[in-house]
């Protein structure tokens, strides 16, 4: 009951937020939109890291693939954004599958470095495949989405779009991780060998995690391309991957709401710290260390993981 009320209040707030922020400044609306983009990215990565336990350091590459796919389709083929969005997601998901298939044999840090390498390779392809990507010059002039003949021109439209995308992402991933799939992923995260000996195919679920994570990164990328109307390789660097990773961990790996929280913290904090100019990065560094020390399992860690695979089947859950 209390939960429903809370959900309702949050929903109402989110709906009127742009009006409130519109009064303050466009900038904060932009920040909120960025939170949305990173929430999708970190929720996707959470499936890979928080649930399947696969250490992936190349998430920005998927984000980039989504953005470039969308940009190229929108610029060269004049397709509707509403068609491009799912296509970009599917193509990116396919890349997730492609990456996942060979590397699932690797564990821990070995996987980390390979995904990092994958991320760099993808970025270098963006940089060097000039005929298609225009290399470091990037792709400018990506057309804005249209809906019923109405062109998205302001931030408010993009805000509602990202809101819808975040909600869909949350619901879909939430259902997946709270199903048998999620349970099996958790098992693999904890003990892969054990998983095998109770009948779970680790490879299947690892690839699935990569595919799901990449799919949603593709959505975020496509949105970003349309929103900024320009893509260039420097937005998809290794540091961006690490940043998304930090969002997952800080918010609490294995908890989707945590990912949104993590994205919010790590998008807002640097913006707030702009007021201290020279000391900005120094304080950001300190802030990250302090947050981790005080919340080693993230703000909403594992403990908040809802055991609702069995939903109402068992009442009185929790501790």
């Amino acid at each position, binding site marked *: 009951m209390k939960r429903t009320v809370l959900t309702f209040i949050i929903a109402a707030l989110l709906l009127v937020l742009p009006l409130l922020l519109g009064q303050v400044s466009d900038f904060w609306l932009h920040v909120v939109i960025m939170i949305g983009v990173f929430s999708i990215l970190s929720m996707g990565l959470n499936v890979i*890291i928080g649930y399947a336990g696969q*250490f992936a350091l190349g998430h920005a590459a998927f984000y980039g693939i989504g953005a470039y796919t969308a940009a190229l389709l929108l610029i060269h083929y004049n397709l509707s954004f509403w068609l491009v969005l799912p296509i970009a997601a599917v193509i990116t998901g396919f890349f997730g599958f492609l990456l996942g298939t*060979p*590397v699932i*044999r*690797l*564990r*821990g*840090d*070995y996987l*980390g*470095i*390979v995904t*990092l*390498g*994958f991320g*760099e*390779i993808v970025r*270098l*392809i963006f*940089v*060097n495949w000039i005929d298609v990507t225009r290399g470091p010059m990037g792709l400018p002039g990506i057309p804005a989405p249209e809906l019923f003949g109405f062109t998205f021109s302001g931030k408010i439209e993009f805000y509602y779009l990202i809101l819808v995308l975040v909600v869909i992402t949350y619901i879909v991933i939430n259902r997946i991780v709270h199903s048998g799939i999620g349970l099996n992923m958790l098992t693999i995260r904890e003990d892969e*060998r054990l998983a095998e*000996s109770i009948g779970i195919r680790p490879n299947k679920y690892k690839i699935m995690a990569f595919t799901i994570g990449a799919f949603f990164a593709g959505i975020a990328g496509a949105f970003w391309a349309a929103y900024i109307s320009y893509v260039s390789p420097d937005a998809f660097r*290794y540091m961006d991957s*690490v940043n998304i*990773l*930090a969002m997952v*961990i*800080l918010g609490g*790996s294995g908890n989707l709401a945590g990912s949104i929280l993590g994205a919010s913290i790590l998008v807002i904090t640097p913006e707030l710290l702009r007021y201290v100019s*020279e*000391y*900005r*990065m*120094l304080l*950001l*560094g*300190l*802030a*990250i*260390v*302090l947050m*981790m*020390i005080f919340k*080693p*399992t*993230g703000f909403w860690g594992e403990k908040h993981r809802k055991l609702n695979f069995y939903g109402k089947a068992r009442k009185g859950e929790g501790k």
Partner: protein
Amino acid sequence: MLLQQITNGLTIGMIYALIALGYTMVYGILKIVNFAHGDIYMVGSFLGLFFLKELHVPLYVAFIFSAIVTAVIGITIERTAYRPLRKADRIVPLISALGVSTFLISVAQLIWGTEMRPFPTTFGSKTYTVGTVTVSEIQILILVLSCILMIGLQLFVKKTKVGTAMRATSISLTNAALLGINTNRMISLAFAIGSALAACAGIMVGIYYNAVYPTMGYMAGINAFTAAVLGGIGSIPGAMLGGVLLGLVEALSGAYISTQYKSVISFAILIIVLLIRPSGILGKKEINKV
């Protein structure tokens, strides 16, 4: 040209290896990837610069001082940023390390500025030409010192009591403590050694390129991490081999294939090697006994 390229590659490789050694030290014992390691290397390099330029000490003294101060910094970082997270998931210190890295870079920028700084020593610039190959003094120093440090470290870890105790600590903190090992001290020691090695690498690189700057740890860190993994993370000869291999691959692919794609090629090779040997070239296979 081939021989010259091999020499070039070997030198870069040795530098990667030296940084990778520190990586492997810390990784070997705590099983965390110390993302801040590259930045510790940067700090070591700046400290070397400071001792040479401000205190006018001889080069070898600069090496020693910088190694000591950097070791202390390494220990401090471990105490403040990693130790409180000992019980947390292995991935958590990684993020904390990221914070440390950001912090170190900005501190360096505040103290030393953002510009690239030259290294105030004339040592190392003398060159020798043998046939078609030109080698500089500093390249020779890098090769020799790296080998000495590696062999010394390997003997220390494998043959001494303290070394064995360090390895015990890396396997299980609890069980090592039950044998009377001061695990905290072992961890501090690993950080100290890793950081001191990074400082040595930092100074040598500073001399080699005659350039020190706050973000120098970034690429170095990634390359060293790659080298450590390629050779088998946690293995000292592995770090060495991985570093040298990476350096050679970069030089040769740059020379004969494409300079734009040389990182692509070295990552591709890394991936292929790992697919064949999932724990790196000299890495130990995971014990598979239930």
